[in-house]
């Protein structure tokens, strides 16, 4: 694989920049931690055009005709996988699924062997989710396909960060100086990390709140990126906030001993209508889903007038269309292996 280089991490310039064009030189989308504001805005602007396609009588445009998108989900996911599938199909790509259960992954195939298979199948884009942080980097270095990280362990979920930024900007306008509270199980949340990575370059400030056992220890001790603060009191974190993103309590990643009980968690950290009322009037409520209703968020809040949770799902398809377009639509077909 002559094209792979160490630190392939998406920064490899693929296309020469043309004067007056939006900057876009990414070959992969693995993490947004090194993205510039301009790159994030390129994706968000394209997302707006993609959303219009989803509202047409025929929700399909042709730029990925003849391209294959392989969805490789080695960890349970419904909404993200379906979202990518709809996005790829709306751009006329062929879509193939490899899931962990029922595939050779379950029969003990190593990630390396799976990558060899993916490479042999000749997909143009591999969208992957994996329980191990960093797995998409491993794949990106060993395939000619563009790799999109759809969530790796505790590390990153870049498309969720981008769709949250798009949804927020659509709801509250320019994010410059806006304060977003991200609350709950921050420790296990790749969503929190990716949200921070996209919101900060757009000018927003982030207040994290959650039980100290569910905040990364360095962050709890004040070693936070500029623009991010930790507020151990949920009510104070919400006071005057411009939006809140509630995180799912990730019980499947939980070691024992981090929480006294679910009931106490719901009482101390659950997002109730009363708590939402502490934010700026009309400030929206978001959640990456799937929700534990009655634990981190009350049903009345999740389905209330301020909730953007369903809008996030719709916008997710459009954001993924924008990324698929930017990564795959203009690569010459003859460059493929």
């Amino acid at each position: 694989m002559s094209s792979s280089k160490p630190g392939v991490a998406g920064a490899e310039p693929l296309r020469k920049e043309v004067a007056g064009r939006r900057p876009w030189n990414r070959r992969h989308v693995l993490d947004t931690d090194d993205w510039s504001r301009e790159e994030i805005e390129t994706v968000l602007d394209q997302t707006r055009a993609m959303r219009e396609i989803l509202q047409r009588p025929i929700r399909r445009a042709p730029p990925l005709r003849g391209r294959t998108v392989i969805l490789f989900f080695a960890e349970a996911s419904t909404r993200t996988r379906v979202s990518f599938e709809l996005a790829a199909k709306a751009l006329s790509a062929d879509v193939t699924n490899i899931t962990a259960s029922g595939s050779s992954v379950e029969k003990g195939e190593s990630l390396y062997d799976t990558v060899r298979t993916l490479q042999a199948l000749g997909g143009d884009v591999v969208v992957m989710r994996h329980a191990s942080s960093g797995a998409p980097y491993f794949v990106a270095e060993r395939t000619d396909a563009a790799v999109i990280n759809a969530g790796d362990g505790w590390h990153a979920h870049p498309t969720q960060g981008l769709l949250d930024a798009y949804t927020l900007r659509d709801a509250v306008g320019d994010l410059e100086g806006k304060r977003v509270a991200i609350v709950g199980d921050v420790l296990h949340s790749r969503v929190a990390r990716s949200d921070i990575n996209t919101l900060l370059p757009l000018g927003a400030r982030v207040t994290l709140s959650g039980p100290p056992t569910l905040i990364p220890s360095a962050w709890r001790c004040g070693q936070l990126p500029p623009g991010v603060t930790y507020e151990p009191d949920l009510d104070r974190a919400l006071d005057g906030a411009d939006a809140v993103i509630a995180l799912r309590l990730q019980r499947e990643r939980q070691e024992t001993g981090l929480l006294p009980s679910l009931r106490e968690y719901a009482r101390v950290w659950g997002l109730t209508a009363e708590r939402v009322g502490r934010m700026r009037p009309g400030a929206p409520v978001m959640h990456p889903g799937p929700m534990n209703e009655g634990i981190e968020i009350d049903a009345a809040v999740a389905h209330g007038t301020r909730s953007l949770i369903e809008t996030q799902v719709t916008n997710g398809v459009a954001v993924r269309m924008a990324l698929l377009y930017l990564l795959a639509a203009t690569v010459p077909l003859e460059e493929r292996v």
Partner: protein
Amino acid sequence: MERDRDLSELAIVGIRARGDALAARIQSAIRANEDVEVPLGAIDITLYRDDLTRIGYAPVVRESDIPFSVDGRIVVLVDDVLFTGRTIRAAMDALVDYGRPRAIRLAVLVDRGHRELPIRADFVGKNVPTAPGDDVRVHLSEVDGRDEVEVVVRELV
């Protein structure tokens, strides 16, 4: 330009980024002369281009905006320059994703010739003979701050 019978089924759709400004001018001309508000839309053809894999970068996709049903309407596509006809092919493909117009007509400000597809304009502002390598640039006050058509002739080396 509009000698087309019944205005009630007419609609105008401009191709971004200059056809949409011209389309708006035609709409206001019809409003001034006939006192009729013809539905106006704008279409972006980027995702329908046949040269996406050849141009070496991802062109910016702008939002299309067709706020009416095209079903049964006579849709007049408007663009600034008609050249190879490939843009118009893309625009027609995009337009039929919105429904089934009764007819599609084509209005252009400048027809510079050198068609590569069997496409012909119904309404032409001006025919301008050019060489294939020339560059015809339309400037509109809405987009460029001035109204001007500029023909840049390729230097003979």
